[in-house]
């Protein structure tokens, strides 16, 4: 596969030595993954499993207490190679928005609340477009049209728009420069189901049109099923399984994924769904070995002693579970 983004053995910890608290939250712990050109890569996992942290680290949006402990994030924008954490701040700045845009979690609140929306477009994109003001806004207008947004909304304040509109506005802002890589964190959570559906199909369309790669996170498996080409499952700061969407849903390998898929209720199917026992691990003191082992129905002795490595079991499929791969290390 022709990689656009390579994440290699990435470790990012929250380090808090504060007011009597002294701890290290290993929110991203040794994650390796690759995203191809034009691919939609979804990351799923339960709350607090480190999804946002992973995405922030890839986007280079870290600020204390989060720290990249080791590993690399490498891009291949415009045919070159850029190492996120070996660049100068200016170089990184130059990548932003032109090649790489990032839609944060709670993206309904990312627009400056006291200025009209068109200012945001000017601030973010005008410099890069290298066209006159009028032409710029014509372009913005036609781009908004693609997202079924009326150009006159640019004159509105963010709060005057509904949540869905704001979210689409943010997506428009993130895609206006047709960057090669778009990162989004829970882009549709808290939206109405009907609106959510619209927004998702729009994201897909845009992505296809401009051919960007897309990395996004949500814990809603339905969304993954609808949008992603490939899905990575994160559990307690580690990637535990990665597979093309269809395969993942059809035949999950990791016990956690299996549970996730099995527990999804659906209309027309009233059979009892199991619920998972136990609680998610504390990332400040994660369990030894496989982090899922305390809750795992297939747990073995080795699971509590060794960290299961990510093993490629099929050409496009990896999993980290001794029960699936055996102890191959």
């Amino acid at each position, binding site marked *: 596969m022709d990689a656009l983004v390579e994440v290699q053995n990435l470790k990012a910890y*929250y380090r*808090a*030595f*504060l*007011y*009597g*608290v002294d701890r290290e*939250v290993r929110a991203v712990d040794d994650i390796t993954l690759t995203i191809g050109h034009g691919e939609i890569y979804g990351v799923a996992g339960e709350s607090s499993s480190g999804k946002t942290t992973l995405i922030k680290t890839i986007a280079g949006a870290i600020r204390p207490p989060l720290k990249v402990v080791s590993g690399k994030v490498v891009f291949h924008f415009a045919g070159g190679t850029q190492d996120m954490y070996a660049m100068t701040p200016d170089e990184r700045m130059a990548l932003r928005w032109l090649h790489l845009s990032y839609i944060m979690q709670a993206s309904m609140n990312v627009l400056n609340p006291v200025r009209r929306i068109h200012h945001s477009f000017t601030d973010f994109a005008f410099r890069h477009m290298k066209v006159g003001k009028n032409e710029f806004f014509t372009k913005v207008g036609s781009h908004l049209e693609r997202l079924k947004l009326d150009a006159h909304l640019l004159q509105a304040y963010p709060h005057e728009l509904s949540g869905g509109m704001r979210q689409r506005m943010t997506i428009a802002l993130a895609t206006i420069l047709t960057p090669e890589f778009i990162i989004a964190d829970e882009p549709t959570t808290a939206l109405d189901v009907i609106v959510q559906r619209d927004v998702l199909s729009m994201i897909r369309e845009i992505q296809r049109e401009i051919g960007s790669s897309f990395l996004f996170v949500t814990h809603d498996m339905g969304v993954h099923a609808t949008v992603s080409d490939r899905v990575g499952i994160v559990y307690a700061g580690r990637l535990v399984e990665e597979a093309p969407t269809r395969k993942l849903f059809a035949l999950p390998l990791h016990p956690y994924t299996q549970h996730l898929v099995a527990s999804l209720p659906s209309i027309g199917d009233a059979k009892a769904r199991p619920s998972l026992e136990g609680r998610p691990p504390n990332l*400040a003191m994660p369990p030894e070995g496989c982090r899922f082992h305390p809750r795992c129905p297939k747990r073995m002795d080795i699971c509590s002693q060794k960290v299961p490595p990510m093993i490629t079991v099929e050409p496009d499929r990896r999993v980290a579970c001794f029960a699936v791969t055996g102890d191959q290390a």
Partner: protein
Amino acid sequence: MFTIIRDLARQNMEFLCGLLLFAVIVGLVILSYFSPYGATDIYLLPPDMPPDGEYWLGTTSRGQDVFWQLTTGLRNTLYFGIGVAFLSRIISLVVGLVAGYAGGTVDKVLMAINDSVMVIPQFPLLILFYFVLKDNMTWVALIVIMASLGWSYDARLIRSVAIGLKTRPFTTQSVYSGMSMSKILVEEHLPYVLPIVFATTMNNMIWSIGMEITLSVLGFTDIETPTMGMMIYWANAHSALIAGTWWWVAAPVAVIVVLFLALFLLSMSMNEYNDPRSRLNRMGG
């Protein structure tokens, strides 16, 4: 508690500086109880002596030792500021929390009172009180009067937070746990407004002590009780700045600056620690 303070001191320069300055203040206040001279006794020492080995901060034109005057004055001023801050905090807490929580008519009535107090010009009123009370204008009376003028702005702040708290789900949870209103306000909501209370305490103290000094300089307070303001009053009545006995003015001013820097630094770092945003972020993890 201790570890928190230790860590605050270790990690937070501001806190450490504040703590050290505050220790100086507390030290002076403690020393005041060991003063070899009566606080109001005058003409015991040779007047107008500049600072030297015997009189560390010199003597006043009234034959008092500036250093020991200062310790007692600081103590009274500090107690005064704390008294006003404490009382007015209580008023603003009660008004703000109740108005915010109860809403409706109660809120409207309380806020009408609140706003009326807010717009009343304090200074003329204080002077009028002084005329009305004359020698009944003791420190306690002044504390009460200042406190009853100095709560309204903060009550509004607290109310705005309280309105937010009222709609927080845990309030509903508390209501359905059968807790009484007072219990909800005191135990559930109070912790959230404490940071505001801390932050406003400093401003309130600056205001009340500044007002005390102003009133004192104009001679509108009890001149027998040594305070920072009274020291300046007497210095001023003896033309200290013109007559060259600058130490008589410099000493109280320096101490007040130290006091407020200490309070400011402490409240700033405590604030950071208390800030619901940063703290809850941390707790959420």
